[in-house]
């Protein structure tokens, strides 16, 4: 697969803040590629370096194989969509969408055809005559998208475009954007701090923290095989349960022990057991692989019930069947799916390999 965007060895400091530290990114042509991380991780800076709005201290940017490190934003031919819509308030939606084409002095017939194409794609044909003030938040975001999509750039760069929408609309627009991506078949590089948004839309994800890439992979790879403790707890809800332990012939923590399913022995090094709440069960299957504790709280959510269990001075959450209804204070056993547990080095935080 050819690469649409390759960023190599990018570093960028603002004053004494290191925003990006030797960052490498390879976005395949036609991918829906998500850059996921908390605020301050360097996502927006990465996007701005790729767009040519920010000059890196070190590193190169290649676009479709061509070195674009020194190129101006216009020469890079990338379209940006931001979380603020930045529409011209006095122009109709149609004129807003047409503005990048007018700036290039394209013939009117072609502009009209392109605007109609984009309006159909975004399902906003009926809104073209309205001014921004007459549009809802979701409609304005579609118009802003339309203005980016009307061009035929190398790639689309999107910086948290759904952040200002309410939850219901955000979920709808997620589906819309993946549909649009599919029908265009173009490269999307999409920045978000919302792990559900990232997981649900991406073909590929890069998880970013403090200016460095923690892991790159498909959503499933990142969820099932997180590279380190930080990625493991950033992705997934409820967040992954962590219990301090040692790992030798057995995994042993304070008041619990599990068989070691093949993790490389850690000797005396402190480690952390990681278990997602859905990989624990209150219907005991395997007596040897269970965590025992007291029920701390029970939270029915309809399709499942979250059971908080106290183990020593730690708390874990078990995703149980909706019919589960243990009493607070009751002693329970949560059996563990040993094939799906994780082990992290407590100091380096890296995932420990299985033999």
């Amino acid at each position, binding site marked *: 697969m050819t690469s649409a965007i390759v960023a190599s060895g990018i570093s960028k400091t603002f004053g004494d803040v290191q925003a990006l530290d030797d960052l490498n990114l390879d976005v395949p042509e036609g991918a829906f590629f998500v850059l996921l991380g908390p605020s301050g991780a360097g996502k927006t800076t990465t996007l701005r370096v790729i767009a040519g709005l920010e000059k890196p201290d070190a590193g190169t940017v290649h676009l479709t194989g061509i070195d674009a490190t020194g190129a101006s934003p216009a020469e890079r031919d990338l379209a940006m969509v931001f979380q603020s819509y930045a529409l011209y308030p006095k122009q109709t939606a149609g004129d807003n969408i047409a503005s990048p084409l007018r700036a290039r002095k394209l013939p009117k017939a072609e502009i009209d055809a392109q605007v109609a194409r984009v309006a159909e794609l975004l399902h906003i044909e009926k809104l073209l005559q309205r001014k921004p003030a007459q549009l809802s938040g979701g409609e304005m975001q579609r118009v802003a998208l339309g203005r980016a999509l009307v061009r035929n750039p190398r790639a689309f760069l999107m910086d948290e475009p759904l952040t200002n929408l309410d939850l219901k609309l955000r*979920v709808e627009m*997620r*589906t819309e954007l*993946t*549909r649009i991506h*599919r029908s265009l078949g173009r490269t999307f590089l999409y920045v978000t701090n919302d792990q*559900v948004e990232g*997981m*649900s839309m991406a073909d590929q994800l890069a998880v970013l923290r403090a200016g460095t890439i923690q892991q790159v992979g498909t*959503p*499933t790879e990142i*969820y*099932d095989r997180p590279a380190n403790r930080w990625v493991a707890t950033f*992705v*997934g*809800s*409820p*967040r992954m349960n962590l219990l301090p332990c040692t790992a030798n012939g057995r995994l042993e923590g304070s008041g619990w022990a599990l068989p070691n399913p093949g993790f490389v022995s850690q000797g005396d090094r402190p480690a952390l057991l990681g278990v*997602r*709440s*859905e990989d624990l069960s209150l219907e005991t299957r395997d007596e040897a692989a269970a965590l025992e504790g007291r029920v*701390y*709280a*029970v*939270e*029915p*959510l*309809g*399709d499942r019930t*979250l059971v*908080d269990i106290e183990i020593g001075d730690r*708390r874990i*959450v078990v*995703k149980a069947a*909706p019919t589960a209804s243990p009493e*607070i204070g009751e002693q329970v056993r949560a059996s563990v799916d040993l094939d799906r547990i994780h082990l992290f080095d407590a100091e380096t935080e890296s995932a420990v390999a299985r033999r």
Partner: protein
Amino acid sequence: MAEVLVKRLRKEFPDGTVAVEELDLAIADGELFVMLGPSGCGKTTTLRCVAGLEEETSGQIVIGDEVVSGLRPSQRDIAMVFQFYALYPHLSVRDNLAFPLRAAKRPAAEVDERVNEAARMLRLEPFLDRRPGKLSGGEQQRVALGRAMVRHPKAFLMDEPLTNLDAELRADMRAELKHVQQRLSSTMIYVTHDQTEAMALGDRIAIMNKGRLEQLGAPMEVYDRPATLFAARFIGSPPMNLIEAEVTNGHLTAAGGLTIAAPEGIQRGERVIAGVRPESFTVSDPASDPDGARGRVASREALGDETIYVVETEAGLLNVRMPPTARFGEDQVVTVRHRGSAPPVYDPQTERLVGR
């Protein structure tokens, strides 16, 4: 702690807006009672009437054995919690906990007793002389909770206290709140627009709409059998599928040959709206299941622990919740089946539950 009764409550504002139509609620002693609804449904107005911050137009509020209508908030012996405030960083845990009691000018002996009790309950005894900055996140939350609950009022009234916390902290705090409420057996009325929070916390949930009660029930009752289409749309994420169907030979049939188990007590030929939760549908490969209703995958959201499919069928767009091991691509043709027992069904005109 005490029971709280809301009797035929009506609240009309001077501009003519009727915030609460006529509401009857009986909140039991020691109950965590959640009022859930969209903004403008009357839940906060009801809470403010109980607190004495609004005067009811008609009706009565009873707290314990006392009719409190006409009494000022301070005379009602209730505690309002709007938000779990940040802790005072320069005060010890002990002084943070004591703060509301000292502010209420309680005698020193009582302050000590209450603080020690709260510390025991919340397992904060080892930390009483530390500053909040020296505590873990979870310990700090317990202090914040303890400070809100250190008084012994007849009831706690909480208005979206978790709203300003980030998602992770909110989930932790929810479990802490539920734990402490059950341990203390406090009477608590908790207002929220967040259905997940309502489900997770409530002993019972009152779903409000336009100043009226839509449904009152335990979380799983409300989830399994919403009383109205409004309640059906409000509880659950992704929402319940609402599907037009007709009663045929012992089951419900929707467009495209989609069949759904039929509840008892509805007539053959009757047209209803079936409410099917996303987890009560499955999708499969037509090669292995050629007979069922067909659909096309319009979108899929892989969330790690589950995958949500939106499937375009003749019966409409259906939300289907599947395990993460299911792998169907967008645009793929699939077979959709209903599984499990009969779903609740609704009269399309009255929008209310019919049958059983």
